[in-house]
């Protein structure tokens, strides 16, 4: 398993050439967010489906499809159940994925605003308001996702992921959870009530927490694509970045031990019942009471499990100071991530989760509810809390999160200018740079085109194509140059 795998085409004595990224710890990050849509104040009936189609009308007229790619290399489409979906362009760093994710919010906001104007102008009344929710549950028990994608080296098996990464994914929700007002009270995650089986390698109707996709959109001899389903849609920039950054560090440690053919230590945290543990974590607002049953019979709290992963990552970082980043900036960033992780766990352990309100979405919501409670001097109706919960995620018409940002109550890693820039600028160091440049040129030229993650196709006025198998490669191939020359 840790040995280089022969591609099958070379002779018995031949060594296989591996990409430079395969040998190190380089990662490709992606975040796909399904958004929810609603409308209020309409003078006649209109449903989410109609609103979503109205939002996508400019997309359809431009690309004859509800599925398109943008000048920043990201994918924009209308998904199952009328959910507008945005998948970030390939990024080498969590902060770059964050910028792309924030650009996605701007795209949705713009589409919503246009749809709102359109509907108001076509007889649905001047008080009509379009809402677009970056969250994971509607009011009727339907759930939708924010999924992360990580390129993982091929020698990490699906089984290894289940046992070693899943307990981390379930317990990281202590600081990545977005929180949700439910009929049974406040929970720290959005999705715990909706997720069942732990791991699945098939795309089925049941919702696993993590799976791997057969199409890594990269060299399948080197990488597989880890698709993390158990994750909340975050408004907090800090949480979005931490979600990706800490998971990356844990994956590094797991990959390294697989490479060396020895246990990572993460297998010690395998859970007896991941679904049950997930619900227990979600319902424990103290964050340090619920005891989770491990496969080996022990019981640990979520914080203790996170502490265990932190130790493993710290040991990995100490052993690989020079390898944990392609440049000093990356290594420094990983060190800061570990510091932030340590700080979060310390605050949770000492019962000071309210101090995380500027960075953890569920804590931010609780802080707001408590402030409202103090001002009103009495119980707030559950429906009011549910409304505030939803408004927090409403990127089109919401006021709560914007107010928190404006008043300096939330950590900002990037500003509006960064998000604006990411609308048209793809990450410069992945194949997204090539895709983005192609899309921008094709749109400019009014040419007919189509894309997927690995292929760029010009369909009119002439037919040309370029294939980009390596997500890490931003260098144009000859085919790409020929493609661009036709525009």
């Amino acid at each position, binding site marked *: 398993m840790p040995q280089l795998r022969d591609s099958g085409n070379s002779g018995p004595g031949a060594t296989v050439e591996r990409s430079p990224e395969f040998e190190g710890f380089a990662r490709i990050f992606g975040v796909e967010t399904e958004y929810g849509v609603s409308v209020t104040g309409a003078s006649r009936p209109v449903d989410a489906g109609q609103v979503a189609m109205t939002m996508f009308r400019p997309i359809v007229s431009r690309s004859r499809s509800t599925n398109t790619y943008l000048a920043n290399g990201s994918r924009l489409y209308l998904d*199952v159940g009328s959910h507008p979906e945005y998948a970030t362009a390939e990024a080498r*760093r969590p902060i770059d994925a964050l910028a792309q994710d924030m650009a996605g919010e701007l795209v949705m906001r713009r589409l919503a605003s246009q749809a709102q104007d359109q509907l108001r102008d076509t007889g649905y009344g001047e008080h009509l308001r379009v809402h677009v929710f970056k969250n994971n549950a509607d009011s009727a028990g339907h759930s939708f996702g924010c999924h992360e994608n990580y390129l993982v080296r091929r020698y990490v098996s699906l089984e290894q992921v289940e046992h070693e990464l899943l307990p981390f994914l379930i317990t990281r929700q202590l600081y990545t959870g977005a929180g949700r007002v439910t009929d049974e009270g406040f929970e720290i995650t959005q999705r715990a009530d909706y997720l069942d089986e732990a791991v699945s390698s098939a795309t089925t109707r049941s919702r696993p927490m993590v799976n791997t996709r057969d199409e890594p959109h990269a060299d399948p001899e080197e990488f597989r694509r880890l698709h993390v389903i158990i994750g909340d849609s975050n408004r907090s920039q800090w949480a979005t970045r931490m979600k990706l950054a800490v998971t990356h560090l844990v994956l590094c440690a797991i990959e390294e031990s697989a490479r060396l053919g020895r246990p990572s230590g993460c297998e010690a945290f395998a859970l007896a019942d991941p679904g049950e543990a997930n619900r227990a974590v979600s319902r424990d607002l103290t964050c340090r009471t619920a005891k989770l049953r491990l496969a080996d019979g022990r019981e640990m709290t979520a914080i203790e499990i996170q502490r265990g992963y932190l130790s493993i990552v710290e040991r990995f970082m100490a052993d690989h100071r020079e390898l944990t980043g392609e440049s000093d900036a990356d290594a420094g960033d990983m060190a*800061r991530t570990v510091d932030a992780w340590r700080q979060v766990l310390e605050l949770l352990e000492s019962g000071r989760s309210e101090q995380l309100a500027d960075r953890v979405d569920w804590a931010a919501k609780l802080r707001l509810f408590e402030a409202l409670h103090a001002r009103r001097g009495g119980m707030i109706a559950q429906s009011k809390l549910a409304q*505030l919960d939803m408004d927090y995620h409403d990127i089109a018409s919401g006021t709560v999160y914007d107010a928190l940002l404006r*008043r300096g109550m939330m950590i900002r890693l990037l500003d509006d200018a960064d998000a604006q820039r990411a609308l048209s600028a793809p990450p410069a160091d992945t194949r997204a740079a090539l895709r983005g440049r192609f899309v921008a040129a094709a749109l400019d030229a009014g040419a007919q085109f189509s894309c997927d993650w690995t292929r760029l196709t010009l369909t009119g006025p002439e037919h040309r194509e370029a294939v980009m198998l390596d997500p890490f490669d931003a260098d144009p191939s000859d085919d790409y140059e020929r493609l661009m020359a036709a525009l």
Partner: protein
Amino acid sequence: MPQEFAQAHAQEHAAAQDEQNAAVAQAASAAATAETAGDALDSVLDDIESVLETNAEEYVSSFVQKGGE
């Protein structure tokens, strides 16, 4: 392209440093921060007055959509 790369790194450095500084400042002056945070929270509640006054049930029940993937 290398320029953008360097720019992104510098930005990330600065942003991460800002984040670190913000965290340290926060921990160091908890009491003072709590008071200012209280004022800021009050301002937030003022800002969202329109939401607080809107009919919650209507807003919440308007959001019904089929599940996603």
